[in-house]
Protein backbone atom coordinates (compact mmCIF):
# COMPACT_ATOMS: atom_id res chain seq x y z
CA UNK A 1 0.00 0.00 0.00
CA UNK A 2 1.41 3.37 -1.03
CA UNK A 3 1.68 5.68 1.95
CA UNK A 4 1.73 8.82 -0.16
CA UNK A 5 -1.67 9.94 -1.36
CA UNK A 6 -0.27 12.68 -3.55
CA UNK A 7 3.27 13.27 -4.73
CA UNK A 8 4.08 16.32 -6.85
CA UNK A 9 7.61 16.72 -8.16
CA UNK A 10 8.93 19.86 -9.82
CA UNK A 11 5.59 20.79 -11.35
CA UNK A 12 5.65 23.62 -13.88
CA UNK A 13 2.67 25.14 -15.59
CA UNK A 14 2.50 28.32 -17.62
CA UNK A 15 -0.26 30.10 -19.48
CA UNK A 16 1.50 31.70 -22.44
CA UNK A 17 4.22 33.93 -21.02
CA UNK A 18 2.85 33.73 -17.47
CA UNK A 19 4.42 31.09 -15.23
CA UNK A 20 1.59 30.09 -12.91
CA UNK A 21 3.43 27.26 -11.14
CA UNK A 22 7.22 27.37 -11.01
CA UNK A 23 8.47 23.94 -10.14
CA UNK A 24 6.66 23.03 -6.94
CA UNK A 25 7.18 19.77 -5.08
CA UNK A 26 5.11 18.44 -2.22
CA UNK A 27 3.73 15.21 -0.89
CA UNK A 28 0.65 14.37 1.14
CA UNK A 29 0.43 11.24 3.25
CA UNK A 30 -2.52 8.85 3.15
CA UNK A 31 -5.24 9.94 5.59
CA UNK A 32 -3.86 13.44 6.02
CA UNK A 33 -5.94 16.62 6.17
CA UNK A 34 -3.69 18.97 4.24
CA UNK A 35 -4.13 22.73 3.95
CA UNK A 36 -2.95 24.44 0.77
CA UNK A 37 -2.83 28.19 1.27
CA UNK A 38 -1.79 31.21 -0.71
CA UNK A 39 -2.96 34.59 -1.96
CA UNK A 40 -5.18 34.96 -5.02
CA UNK A 41 -3.23 34.05 -8.16
CA UNK A 42 -0.53 32.22 -6.20
CA UNK A 43 -1.04 28.97 -8.15
CA UNK A 44 -3.27 26.89 -5.86
CA UNK A 45 -6.07 26.31 -8.34
CA UNK A 46 -3.63 25.77 -11.20
CA UNK A 47 -1.85 23.08 -9.17
CA UNK A 48 -5.20 21.43 -8.45
CA UNK A 49 -6.14 21.62 -12.14
CA UNK A 50 -2.88 19.88 -13.04
CA UNK A 51 -3.49 17.13 -10.47
CA UNK A 52 -7.06 16.48 -11.59
CA UNK A 53 -6.42 16.60 -15.34
CA UNK A 54 -8.22 19.85 -16.13
CA UNK A 55 -4.95 21.54 -17.11
CA UNK A 56 -2.01 20.09 -19.03
CA UNK A 57 1.30 20.91 -17.37
CA UNK A 58 4.65 21.55 -19.04
CA UNK A 59 6.94 19.49 -16.84
CA UNK A 60 7.17 17.58 -13.59
CA UNK A 61 5.40 14.49 -12.30
CA UNK A 62 2.23 13.91 -10.32
CA UNK A 63 1.50 10.61 -8.62
CA UNK A 64 -1.78 9.76 -6.91
CA UNK A 65 -1.34 6.82 -4.51
CA UNK A 66 1.73 5.92 -6.55
CA UNK A 67 -0.13 6.06 -9.89
CA UNK A 68 1.17 8.42 -12.54
CA UNK A 69 -1.57 11.01 -13.18
CA UNK A 70 -0.62 11.35 -16.86
CA UNK A 71 0.36 7.85 -17.96
CA UNK A 72 -2.31 5.98 -15.95
CA UNK A 73 -4.78 8.83 -15.88
CA UNK A 74 -7.88 6.61 -15.71
CA UNK A 75 -6.75 4.84 -12.52
CA UNK A 76 -5.40 8.06 -10.99
CA UNK A 77 -8.62 9.99 -11.64
CA UNK A 78 -10.76 7.25 -10.09
CA UNK A 79 -8.93 7.94 -6.85
CA UNK A 80 -9.55 11.70 -6.89
CA UNK A 81 -12.72 13.60 -6.05
CA UNK A 82 -12.78 17.31 -6.83
CA UNK A 83 -15.04 19.98 -5.38
CA UNK A 84 -13.90 23.07 -7.26
CA UNK A 85 -14.05 26.72 -6.35
CA UNK A 86 -16.58 27.53 -9.09
CA UNK A 87 -19.88 25.74 -9.67
CA UNK A 88 -18.81 23.89 -12.80
CA UNK A 89 -22.03 21.96 -13.39
CA UNK A 90 -24.85 22.01 -15.88
CA UNK A 91 -26.99 24.53 -14.01
CA UNK A 92 -30.21 23.35 -15.69
CA UNK A 93 -29.68 19.73 -14.61
CA UNK A 94 -31.38 18.30 -11.53
CA UNK A 95 -29.30 17.27 -8.52
CA UNK A 96 -30.01 13.57 -8.99
CA UNK A 97 -29.16 13.77 -12.70
CA UNK A 98 -25.85 15.50 -11.98
CA UNK A 99 -24.87 12.66 -9.65
CA UNK A 100 -26.20 10.04 -12.09
CA UNK A 101 -24.15 11.29 -15.02
CA UNK A 102 -20.96 11.88 -13.06
CA UNK A 103 -21.27 8.42 -11.51
CA UNK A 104 -21.57 7.03 -15.02
CA UNK A 105 -18.46 8.88 -16.21
CA UNK A 106 -16.57 7.05 -13.47
CA UNK A 107 -17.85 3.74 -14.82
CA UNK A 108 -20.17 2.87 -11.93
CA UNK A 109 -22.76 0.28 -13.10
CA UNK A 110 -26.43 1.35 -13.06
CA UNK A 111 -27.66 -0.58 -10.01
CA UNK A 112 -24.67 0.32 -7.88
CA UNK A 113 -24.96 3.92 -9.03
CA UNK A 114 -28.62 4.12 -7.99
CA UNK A 115 -27.76 2.80 -4.53
CA UNK A 116 -24.75 5.07 -4.21
CA UNK A 117 -26.74 8.17 -5.21
CA UNK A 118 -29.40 7.49 -2.57
CA UNK A 119 -26.69 7.02 0.05
CA UNK A 120 -24.89 10.21 -0.89
CA UNK A 121 -28.11 12.27 -1.12
CA UNK A 122 -28.99 11.06 2.35
CA UNK A 123 -25.50 11.73 3.73
CA UNK A 124 -25.50 15.32 2.47
CA UNK A 125 -29.17 15.87 3.36
CA UNK A 126 -30.04 16.52 -0.26
CA UNK A 127 -32.82 13.96 -0.73
CA UNK A 128 -35.60 16.57 -0.70
CA UNK A 129 -33.67 18.66 -3.24
CA UNK A 130 -32.82 15.77 -5.56
CA UNK A 131 -35.46 16.74 -8.13
CA UNK A 132 -34.61 20.44 -8.21
CA UNK A 133 -32.50 22.01 -10.95
CA UNK A 134 -29.10 23.12 -9.69
CA UNK A 135 -29.79 26.77 -10.48
CA UNK A 136 -32.76 26.80 -8.07
CA UNK A 137 -30.69 25.71 -5.07
CA UNK A 138 -29.31 28.09 -2.43
CA UNK A 139 -25.56 28.76 -2.23
CA UNK A 140 -25.07 26.33 0.64
CA UNK A 141 -27.01 23.56 -1.07
CA UNK A 142 -25.00 24.09 -4.24
CA UNK A 143 -21.81 23.60 -2.20
CA UNK A 144 -23.23 20.38 -0.79
CA UNK A 145 -24.06 19.17 -4.29
CA UNK A 146 -20.47 19.87 -5.33
CA UNK A 147 -19.23 17.80 -2.39
CA UNK A 148 -21.72 15.03 -3.12
CA UNK A 149 -20.59 14.98 -6.74
CA UNK A 150 -16.95 14.76 -5.65
CA UNK A 151 -17.81 11.80 -3.40
CA UNK A 152 -20.03 9.85 -5.81
CA UNK A 153 -17.28 7.41 -6.85
CA UNK A 154 -15.96 7.08 -3.29
CA UNK A 155 -12.51 8.56 -3.97
CA UNK A 156 -9.58 8.13 -1.61
CA UNK A 157 -8.26 11.64 -2.17
CA UNK A 158 -10.67 14.55 -1.87
CA UNK A 159 -9.56 17.90 -3.26
CA UNK A 160 -11.58 20.87 -2.04
CA UNK A 161 -10.88 24.22 -3.62
CA UNK A 162 -12.38 26.85 -1.31
CA UNK A 163 -15.44 24.76 -0.43
CA UNK A 164 -16.81 27.25 2.08
CA UNK A 165 -16.55 30.40 -0.06
CA UNK A 166 -19.81 32.35 0.12
CA UNK A 167 -21.41 29.92 2.56
CA UNK A 168 -23.23 31.10 5.71
CA UNK A 169 -21.89 30.30 9.19
CA UNK A 170 -24.32 27.45 9.92
CA UNK A 171 -23.69 25.74 6.61
CA UNK A 172 -19.94 26.21 7.02
CA UNK A 173 -20.09 24.37 10.35
CA UNK A 174 -22.06 21.57 8.68
CA UNK A 175 -19.44 21.34 5.94
CA UNK A 176 -16.64 21.20 8.50
CA UNK A 177 -18.47 18.37 10.23
CA UNK A 178 -18.82 16.45 6.93
CA UNK A 179 -15.13 16.95 6.16
CA UNK A 180 -14.01 15.81 9.60
CA UNK A 181 -16.22 12.73 9.32
CA UNK A 182 -14.77 11.89 5.90
CA UNK A 183 -11.22 12.36 7.15
CA UNK A 184 -11.94 10.11 10.13
CA UNK A 185 -13.32 7.54 7.69
CA UNK A 186 -9.87 7.46 6.08
CA UNK A 187 -10.17 9.93 3.23
CA UNK A 188 -7.16 12.07 2.44
CA UNK A 189 -8.24 15.69 2.07
CA UNK A 190 -6.47 18.57 0.36
CA UNK A 191 -8.17 21.82 1.30
CA UNK A 192 -7.57 25.30 -0.02
CA UNK A 193 -9.27 28.18 1.71
CA UNK A 194 -8.91 31.86 2.47
CA UNK A 195 -10.55 31.29 5.87
CA UNK A 196 -7.41 30.56 7.85
CA UNK A 197 -9.32 29.72 11.04
CA UNK A 198 -10.93 26.75 9.28
CA UNK A 199 -7.56 25.56 7.98
CA UNK A 200 -6.13 25.95 11.47
CA UNK A 201 -8.99 23.94 12.92
CA UNK A 202 -9.16 21.17 10.32
CA UNK A 203 -5.71 20.60 8.86
CA UNK A 204 -2.76 18.70 10.29
CA UNK A 205 -0.18 19.87 7.76
CA UNK A 206 -0.05 23.05 5.74
CA UNK A 207 1.76 24.39 2.67
CA UNK A 208 1.81 28.03 1.63
CA UNK A 209 2.27 28.79 -2.04
CA UNK A 210 3.19 32.24 -3.28
CA UNK A 211 4.06 33.42 -6.80
CA UNK A 212 3.94 29.82 -8.03
CA UNK A 213 6.44 28.49 -5.48
CA UNK A 214 6.09 26.74 -2.15
CA UNK A 215 6.98 29.42 0.40
CA UNK A 216 6.56 27.21 3.47
CA UNK A 217 5.47 23.69 4.30
CA UNK A 218 5.18 21.86 7.60
CA UNK A 219 3.02 20.65 10.45
CA UNK A 220 0.36 23.01 11.72
CA UNK A 221 2.17 23.31 15.05
CA UNK A 222 5.22 24.75 13.27
CA UNK A 223 3.09 27.63 12.00
CA UNK A 224 1.28 28.36 15.25
CA UNK A 225 4.09 27.80 17.76
CA UNK A 226 4.51 30.46 20.41
CA UNK A 227 0.74 30.96 20.65
CA UNK A 228 0.53 32.69 17.26
CA UNK A 229 -2.47 32.40 15.01
CA UNK A 230 -1.99 30.81 11.59
CA UNK A 231 -2.96 34.14 10.07
CA UNK A 232 0.07 35.77 11.68
CA UNK A 233 2.48 33.20 10.21
CA UNK A 234 0.72 33.34 6.85
CA UNK A 235 1.01 37.13 6.60
CA UNK A 236 4.62 37.04 7.75
CA UNK A 237 5.50 34.54 5.01
CA UNK A 238 3.54 36.11 2.15
CA UNK A 239 4.43 39.72 3.07
CA UNK A 240 8.04 38.75 3.74
CA UNK A 241 8.26 37.36 0.22
CA UNK A 242 6.70 40.53 -1.16
CA UNK A 243 9.25 42.70 0.65
CA UNK A 244 12.11 40.50 -0.53
CA UNK A 245 10.92 40.85 -4.10
CA UNK A 246 10.64 44.64 -3.94
CA UNK A 247 14.05 45.01 -2.19
Amino acid sequence: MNEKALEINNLRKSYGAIDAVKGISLSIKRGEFFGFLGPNGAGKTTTIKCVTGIAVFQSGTIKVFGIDAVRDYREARKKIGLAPQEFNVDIFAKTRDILWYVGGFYGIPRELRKKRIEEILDKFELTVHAGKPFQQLSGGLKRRVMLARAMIHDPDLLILDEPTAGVDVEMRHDLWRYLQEMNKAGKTILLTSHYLEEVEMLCGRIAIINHGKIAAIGDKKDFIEGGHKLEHAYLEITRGEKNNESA
Partner: protein
Amino acid sequence: MKARNVNWIGLQTFISREVARMFRVWIQVLVAPWSSALLYIFIFGRIVGARIGLIENVAYIDFVLPGLVMLNLINSSFLHSSSSLYFMRFVKHIEELLVAPLSYLEMIVGFVCGGIIRGLVVGLACMRWRFFLPLPRLSIFFSLYFIPFRYP
Protein backbone atom coordinates in the same frame (compact mmCIF):
# COMPACT_ATOMS: atom_id res chain seq x y z
CA MET B 1 -7.13 1.52 -28.14
CA LYS B 2 -8.30 -1.94 -27.07
CA ALA B 3 -12.04 -2.47 -26.52
CA ARG B 4 -11.47 -3.58 -22.94
CA ASN B 5 -9.67 -0.30 -22.24
CA VAL B 6 -12.67 1.75 -23.30
CA ASN B 7 -14.76 3.26 -20.51
CA TRP B 8 -18.01 1.91 -22.04
CA ILE B 9 -20.23 2.96 -19.13
CA GLY B 10 -18.71 6.46 -19.22
CA LEU B 11 -19.17 6.74 -22.97
CA GLN B 12 -22.75 5.45 -22.83
CA THR B 13 -23.52 7.90 -20.00
CA PHE B 14 -22.03 10.78 -21.97
CA ILE B 15 -24.14 9.96 -25.04
CA SER B 16 -27.28 9.58 -22.92
CA ARG B 17 -26.57 12.95 -21.31
CA GLU B 18 -26.22 14.53 -24.76
CA VAL B 19 -29.56 13.03 -25.81
CA ALA B 20 -31.22 14.18 -22.57
CA ARG B 21 -29.85 17.69 -23.14
CA MET B 22 -31.23 17.60 -26.67
CA PHE B 23 -34.76 16.81 -25.49
CA ARG B 24 -34.52 19.38 -22.71
CA VAL B 25 -34.48 22.06 -25.42
CA TRP B 26 -36.91 20.22 -27.73
CA ILE B 27 -38.41 23.44 -29.12
CA GLN B 28 -35.02 24.52 -30.47
CA VAL B 29 -34.20 20.98 -31.54
CA LEU B 30 -37.42 20.00 -33.28
CA VAL B 31 -39.78 22.92 -33.81
CA ALA B 32 -37.20 25.32 -35.25
CA PRO B 33 -35.88 23.02 -38.05
CA TRP B 34 -39.35 21.59 -38.61
CA SER B 35 -40.87 25.03 -39.22
CA SER B 36 -37.90 26.20 -41.31
CA ALA B 37 -38.27 23.05 -43.45
CA LEU B 38 -41.95 23.88 -43.91
CA LEU B 39 -41.03 27.40 -44.98
CA TYR B 40 -38.54 26.08 -47.55
CA ILE B 41 -41.06 23.50 -48.81
CA PHE B 42 -43.66 26.19 -49.18
CA ILE B 43 -41.36 28.68 -50.94
CA PHE B 44 -39.28 26.36 -53.12
CA GLY B 45 -41.71 23.50 -53.51
CA ARG B 46 -45.02 25.28 -53.93
CA ILE B 47 -44.36 28.82 -55.13
CA VAL B 48 -41.09 28.46 -57.09
CA GLY B 49 -41.87 24.84 -58.04
CA ALA B 50 -45.25 25.80 -59.54
CA ARG B 51 -43.54 28.30 -61.86
CA ILE B 52 -40.81 25.87 -62.91
CA GLY B 53 -43.15 22.98 -63.67
CA LEU B 54 -41.91 19.49 -64.52
CA ILE B 55 -38.34 18.92 -65.71
CA GLU B 56 -38.05 15.55 -67.42
CA ASN B 57 -41.21 14.47 -65.58
CA VAL B 58 -39.71 15.30 -62.17
CA ALA B 59 -41.48 17.94 -60.08
CA TYR B 60 -39.26 20.55 -58.51
CA ILE B 61 -40.41 19.55 -55.02
CA ASP B 62 -39.26 15.94 -55.67
CA PHE B 63 -35.87 17.29 -56.56
CA VAL B 64 -35.52 19.76 -53.71
CA LEU B 65 -37.07 17.85 -50.76
CA PRO B 66 -34.17 15.46 -50.05
CA GLY B 67 -31.87 18.46 -50.07
CA LEU B 68 -34.07 20.29 -47.57
CA VAL B 69 -34.08 17.27 -45.28
CA MET B 70 -30.31 16.96 -45.51
CA LEU B 71 -29.86 20.70 -44.98
CA ASN B 72 -31.71 20.54 -41.66
CA LEU B 73 -30.09 17.26 -40.70
CA ILE B 74 -26.54 18.50 -41.29
CA ASN B 75 -27.20 21.89 -39.70
CA SER B 76 -28.71 20.30 -36.58
CA SER B 77 -25.95 17.77 -36.31
CA PHE B 78 -23.15 20.34 -36.43
CA LEU B 79 -25.11 22.72 -34.23
CA HIS B 80 -25.53 20.06 -31.55
CA SER B 81 -21.85 19.17 -31.25
CA SER B 82 -20.65 22.77 -31.41
CA SER B 83 -23.30 24.25 -29.08
CA SER B 84 -22.82 21.42 -26.58
CA LEU B 85 -19.06 21.93 -26.50
CA TYR B 86 -19.38 25.71 -26.40
CA PHE B 87 -21.98 25.65 -23.61
CA MET B 88 -19.88 23.20 -21.60
CA ARG B 89 -16.84 25.42 -21.95
CA PHE B 90 -18.84 28.56 -21.20
CA VAL B 91 -20.32 27.31 -17.92
CA LYS B 92 -17.17 25.28 -17.29
CA HIS B 93 -18.93 21.98 -16.74
CA ILE B 94 -16.61 20.49 -19.34
CA GLU B 95 -14.39 20.10 -16.26
CA GLU B 96 -16.77 17.33 -15.17
CA LEU B 97 -15.62 15.39 -18.21
CA LEU B 98 -11.96 16.37 -17.95
CA VAL B 99 -11.59 15.09 -14.39
CA ALA B 100 -13.40 11.83 -15.20
CA PRO B 101 -11.56 8.72 -16.41
CA LEU B 102 -12.56 9.34 -20.03
CA SER B 103 -10.07 9.63 -22.88
CA TYR B 104 -10.19 12.53 -25.35
CA LEU B 105 -11.22 10.05 -28.04
CA GLU B 106 -14.18 8.88 -25.94
CA MET B 107 -15.22 12.50 -25.45
CA ILE B 108 -15.06 13.17 -29.20
CA VAL B 109 -17.03 9.98 -29.94
CA GLY B 110 -19.63 11.12 -27.38
CA PHE B 111 -20.01 14.54 -29.03
CA VAL B 112 -20.17 13.00 -32.52
CA CYS B 113 -22.78 10.41 -31.46
CA GLY B 114 -24.87 13.19 -29.88
CA GLY B 115 -24.67 15.13 -33.17
CA ILE B 116 -25.61 12.09 -35.26
CA ILE B 117 -28.61 11.29 -33.04
CA ARG B 118 -29.87 14.88 -33.21
CA GLY B 119 -29.34 14.92 -36.98
CA LEU B 120 -31.35 11.71 -37.38
CA VAL B 121 -34.16 12.97 -35.13
CA VAL B 122 -34.40 16.26 -37.04
CA GLY B 123 -34.07 14.56 -40.45
CA LEU B 124 -36.83 12.08 -39.64
CA ALA B 125 -39.00 14.87 -38.21
CA CYS B 126 -38.61 16.89 -41.42
CA MET B 127 -39.51 13.85 -43.52
CA ARG B 128 -42.73 13.59 -41.50
CA TRP B 129 -44.08 16.66 -43.31
CA ARG B 130 -45.08 14.14 -45.97
CA PHE B 131 -48.00 13.10 -43.75
CA PHE B 132 -49.46 16.58 -43.79
CA LEU B 133 -48.53 17.83 -47.22
CA PRO B 134 -48.63 16.27 -50.69
CA LEU B 135 -44.92 15.56 -50.80
CA PRO B 136 -42.93 12.79 -52.49
CA ARG B 137 -42.11 9.68 -50.49
CA LEU B 138 -38.47 9.50 -49.41
CA SER B 139 -37.00 6.07 -48.91
CA ILE B 140 -36.06 5.70 -45.25
CA PHE B 141 -33.50 3.00 -46.13
CA PHE B 142 -31.89 5.14 -48.79
CA SER B 143 -31.80 8.08 -46.37
CA LEU B 144 -30.27 5.99 -43.61
CA TYR B 145 -27.63 4.82 -46.08
CA PHE B 146 -26.77 8.36 -47.09
CA ILE B 147 -26.84 9.92 -43.62
CA PRO B 148 -24.01 7.97 -41.95
CA PHE B 149 -22.00 6.94 -45.01
CA ARG B 150 -22.25 9.89 -47.35
CA TYR B 151 -22.80 12.88 -45.14
CA PRO B 152 -19.40 13.11 -43.32
